[in-house]
């Protein structure tokens, strides 16, 4: 069911991509350090919803960042995986923001966060079946039409799955990409967290992911917990350095994708700027290695649907 006109038009109008470099999730607390040291960061990413006020310091800071760095805007409030219609007022706010700052990328999540008029401030899970696929496709179409650009959809961190799922996550994302022409944001930490939480092999997920459509990668640290049978639970808390296991998975992803814009996300227990910068430099070094001549991008596109 290839939906031709809208998505094809949108694909033709791709915005200039983010540089294939390491970027950092922007935190207010780091603004002064960034201003003073003008760090060699590939790009900054911000949450759309934090810049939807009318004026004041947030816009002053973002304007300054946008002047000096490529920008990625990451939405957390569109509730693309939700059962209800998209909030048009909110979509309008996203559109204004994207028009104002013209980011290289706008991305959102395969998740939901709104019920009626209440915002739950978490990325909640959805079953992967025909019903939810139709909704997600319709919502992604609507966002892309409103913004007049291709968006990226991120694989979520989940702690539970649904009996009513009939697709693997990778197949579900693949269908959404196929029907809407959207791109993908591969969160490697989410992959790892899900692999532990649901008992699959993270490497298989990376090997099966549609790397051709990946235009950005996210890296973050997780927190550790246990479920009722003392099974390992990993929580996508963005509160720690990127783990060794996730760095390893990231290298595996890069070996398939080639170098691609990579974000360090650190949202809780935010460290001092130099620590965050060091994480970004570690990603930058891995990207640099991938940029060596002879290293082909996208060399192995594995068949989909092996896992998850």
């Amino acid at each position, binding site marked *: 069911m290839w939906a031709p006109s809208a998505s094809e038009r949108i694909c033709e109008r791709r915005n200039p991509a983010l540089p294939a470099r390491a970027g950092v999730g922007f935190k207010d607390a780091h603004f002064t350090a960034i201003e003073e040291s003008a760090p060699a960061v590939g790009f900054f990413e911000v949450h759309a*919803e934090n810049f939807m*006020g009318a004026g004041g310091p947030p*816009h*002053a800071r973002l304007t300054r960042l946008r002047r000096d760095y490529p920008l990625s805007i990451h939405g957390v*409030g569109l509730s693309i995986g939700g059962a209800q219609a998209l*909030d048009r007022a*909110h979509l309008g706010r996203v559109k204004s923001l994207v028009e104002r700052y013209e980011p290289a990328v706008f991305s959102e999540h395969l998740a939901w966060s709104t019920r009626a*008029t209440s915002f739950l*401030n*978490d990325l909640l899970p959805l079953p992967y079946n025909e019903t939810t696929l139709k909704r997600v496709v319709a919502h992604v179409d609507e966002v892309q039409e409103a913004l007049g650009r291709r968006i990226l959809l991120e694989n979520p961190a989940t702690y539970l799955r649904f009996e009513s799922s009939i697709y693997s996550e990778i197949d579900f994302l693949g269908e959404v990409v196929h029907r809407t022409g959207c791109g993908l944001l591969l969160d490697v930490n989410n992959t790892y967290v899900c692999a532990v939480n649901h008992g699959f092999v993270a490497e298989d997920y990376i090997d099966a992911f549609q790397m051709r459509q990946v235009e950005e990668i996210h890296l973050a640290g997780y927190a550790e917990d246990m479920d009722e049978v003392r099974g390992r639970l990993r929580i996508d808390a963005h509160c720690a350095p990127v783990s060794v296991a996730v760095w390893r998975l990231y290298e595996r992803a890069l070996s398939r994708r080639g170098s691609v814009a990579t974000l360090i996300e650190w949202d809780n227990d935010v460290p001092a700027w130099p620590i965050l910068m060091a994480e970004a430099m570690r990603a930058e070094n891995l990207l640099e290695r991938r940029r060596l001549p002879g290293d082909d991008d996208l060399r192995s596109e594995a068949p989909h649907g092996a896992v998850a």
Partner: protein
Amino acid sequence: MAPSPEFDQEEFVRALLDPDLPPPAGLKATHDLPPLRRFAVYRNNVVVGLIDALAERFPVCLRLVGEEFFRAMALRHVRRSLPRTPLLFEYGEDFAEFVAGFEPARSLPYLPDVASLEYAMGRACHAVDATPLPLDLVRSLPLERLEAATASFHPSTQVVPSDYPIVSIWRANMATDPPRSLTLDHAEDALVVRPRLDVEAHALPSGGSAFIETLMGGGAFGEAASAASRRAKDFDLTANLRMLLASEALTAINI
């Protein structure tokens, strides 16, 4: 095989917010027990995230009552009143009202007003930008016509009335050093304004809230002065005009 139950977001949300309810049907873990701990991750994410948001929005209230009390109070508010938009910086609009009705905090009668002040400061932060009226322009005004003139205010301007010295309380608790003892023997109405990038809170002189509210309602300076002197016997016009100019709350005086 029985068909899988259709996913019900309403049921999911009800269970998220009420820890006494079982997790919704149709969920799967790697084991066959009810996935309480896994569902609790989502319960935590929602509730803790929103408590954190309130803690960030109301740092002085938090400091006044302490972390533990604040988080327990905020948890109750979160369950009653979720954000109405994904704009988290707007969250907490009705927190002051909630605090006013919160029995365990009733011995701190100033707490709701401090919450109102903090919320107003947050709103000021995100208000539309505007250029304050330059003093050079003020100097050239025909003063004799001021009585009939009206004022335009910076969009961030808000008055927060209180029977307690909320600006002094706020100031004493925004410092990192240990708080000094404060005696609540006077009232302070607060003027909140963000002329440029910094949000400021000023304690208004006597009659100041009536004066500024009349002006903000479109009344002329003469009218505002009369209203304020009716409200406060010790209304000092010079002190109030000084506050207006010094706070840079004005964007224009319309002669």
